[in-house]
């Protein structure tokens, strides 16, 4: 990133002996971080365009792929440094990936530590149609429904950009809903609960009441938890809605209109019948967007799609749902 940082920040990095901002969510050698065959012969899986073409795009006949750069920008405590790094990451993505591979699109990394700076970052890149989404993490300083974040959603909506919430944490709060976990396994499993909490927050604070056309995409969230969570939240909404009178529709309806989830990881038992029923419980074929989660190790070979889905649902997951969600993907088509 040094070439993309200003003189000031380059000097700061050197003077202060800063190291890489690699997040502990994906420890370098942990199995989740990279599939063995995608890791082979390289320092960092997914770090070369040729490998990405050969491993992530060609084998899946992918016509468009959206990149999410998970660099520890949002975990910094300095707002200024976070903004500088967000700009550098986005510039790096534009110059070294989007300029060189027409199938790639990207999400705008924003410094959520400071909402004004995050909005500035969106405004800076909005004219570049290859940026198709705004990227935030599943756990930050405050829950994403809070009013302080709404200018980010207003800016995203102004430019036709969905909000993508990706697994990961700033680690500014304990990393699970029960406190600091001991293991990477608990941390990663707990990401699903982080998404549940964020969905609760976005709905209850009224984000979708204020911005009824805002699209939120949950990235690497798992999806089999969604239906039971919406049953619970909708039941409580019936009992407690006087507390949040701005939420006029059932949370389960809001989710079907405004929230999408990426496919991988498929957190389901080996029994495919149970998976099919879990998908059926979600109550809509519009919710899932195909993803490989490359280079994370979620499946082997090219078996990213669960077996036995209907042709209609398969087409929705592979193509239609993404085109409906991302206005900017419709401009070029698959």
């Amino acid at each position: 990133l040094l070439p993309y940082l200003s003189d000031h920040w380059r000097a700061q990095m050197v003077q202060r002996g800063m190291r890489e901002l690699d997040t502990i969510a994906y420890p370098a050698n942990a199995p989740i971080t990279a599939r063995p065959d995608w890791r082979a012969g390289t320092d960092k899986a997914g770090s070369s365009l040729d490998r990405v073409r050969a491993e992530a795009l060609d084998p899946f006949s992918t016509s468009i792929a959206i990149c999410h750069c998970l660099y520890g920008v949002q975990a910094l405590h300095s707002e200024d440094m976070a903004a500088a790094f967000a700009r550098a990451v986005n510039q790096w993505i534009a110059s070294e990936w989007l300029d060189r591979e027409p199938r790639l699109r990207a999400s705008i990394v924003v410094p959520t530590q400071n909402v004004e700076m995050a909005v500035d970052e969106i405004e800076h890149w909005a004219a570049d149609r290859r940026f198709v989404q705004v990227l935030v993490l599943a756990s930050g300083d405050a829950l994403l429904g809070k009013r302080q974040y709404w200018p980010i959603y207003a800016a995203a909506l102004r430019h036709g950009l969905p909000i993508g919430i990706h697994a990961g944490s700033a680690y500014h709060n304990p990393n699970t809903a029960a406190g600091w976990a001991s293991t990477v396994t608990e941390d990663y499993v707990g990401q699903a609960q982080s998404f549940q909490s964020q969905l609760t927050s976005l709905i209850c604070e009224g984000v979708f009441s204020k911005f009824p056309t805002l699209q939120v995409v949950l990235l690497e969230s798992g999806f089999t938890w969604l239906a039971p969570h919406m049953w619970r939240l909708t039941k409580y909404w019936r009992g407690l809605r006087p507390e949040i009178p701005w939420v006029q529709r059932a949370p389960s309806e809001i989710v079907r209109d405004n929230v999408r989830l990426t496919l991988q990881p498929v957190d389901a038992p080996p029994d495919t019948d149970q998976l099919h029923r879990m998908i059926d419980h979600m109550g809509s074929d519009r919710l899932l967007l195909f993803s490989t989660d490359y280079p994370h190790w979620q499946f082997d070979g090219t078996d990213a799609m669960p077996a036995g889905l209907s042709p209609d649902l398969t087409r929705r997951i592979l193509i239609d749902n993404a085109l409906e969600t991302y206005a900017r993907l419709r401009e070029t088509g698959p």
Partner: protein
Amino acid sequence: MNVDVLNRGPVAAVSNTRLAVADCDIHPVIRSLRESLYPYLLSRWRHHLETYGMSQRVAYQDGAPPYPKGTPNAARRDSWPPGGAPGTDLDFMRAQHLDANNVAFAVCNPLMPSGQGFANPQLSAAMCHATNEWQKYALIARERRLRASVVVPYEDTAASVAEIELRAGDPDFAQVLLLSRTAEPLGQPRYRPIFEAAVRAGLPVAIHAFGYGGSPITSGGWPSYYIEEMAGHSQNSQALLSSLVIEGVFESLPSLRVIIVEAGFAWLPALCARLDKHWLRMRDETPELRRLPSEYIREQVWLTTQPMEEPETHEHLHDIIDWIGWDRLLFASDYPHWDFDDPATALPLRLTEEQRQKFFLDNARALYGMA
């Protein structure tokens, strides 16, 4: 539905037509500290309570909730007995709930102010002990359908173990009670002796949603609303159950039985699938585990049913219970709280007689060893 709380008539008469139920989560409440707990507290603690009050890791005196409840005392509007607060009048509870709903036995889970989660560990231990004495003499001695929980000051492991050992072998006590919002995830080593003591005493460990351990109920900070706190209990319980499994509590204590109380249950199949998948991928991180996470859960975890999730398509709930196992859910009403589940209407599914019997009564009988 509107309930006229001021001019209501006598509570419903006993219904002999109703299936007998075991109610695995009811909340009797002390009439007052002075009347109910002072007899079991040293003068030092009586003085402390009157001078310094109770600090429960929340901002307000005597533990007033930072997320104000949906109703006064979080109670059903019709559960206020004449001249007292909900849950404080045993005769009223008998008539309104135990008799009316044909409750064969009910497990008492005393909540605030039971002493659990107090910032002052000595006061916490003294209050928990007093709460147990109160349950034994004010409740169980007077109503044999009730069973008590061993309320323990879980942030003080040694005091918790001592309280469990004191109650071991006393048939008035059916389980050890923890709250879910502990200072650290419950699988961590500091809490292990509590689970070991429960196993030695032959008691299951019930982990009831609520409490305040000091950290937010989400991994992304504090929510704004009571509805978020209520919905959040299920994320908190998913995380603590993950901790118990991954830290090896079930592996090291194969006869431990854990009950997740008032956190819902429909989330369990998805959590099991996620635990299995990602534990298998990273199993070299916790090589002491010898079985799939879902296998420990299938054999050693029970869940109470209230507040029951309500899918738009009722049959989806049937799928969920099929996946969890019909022998693992324990009916609970949460009396006298506002989100009470009525046994007559709470499970709107077509069931076999065996399924209904297990769900409402037999699973609890087997778990608690009740005739």
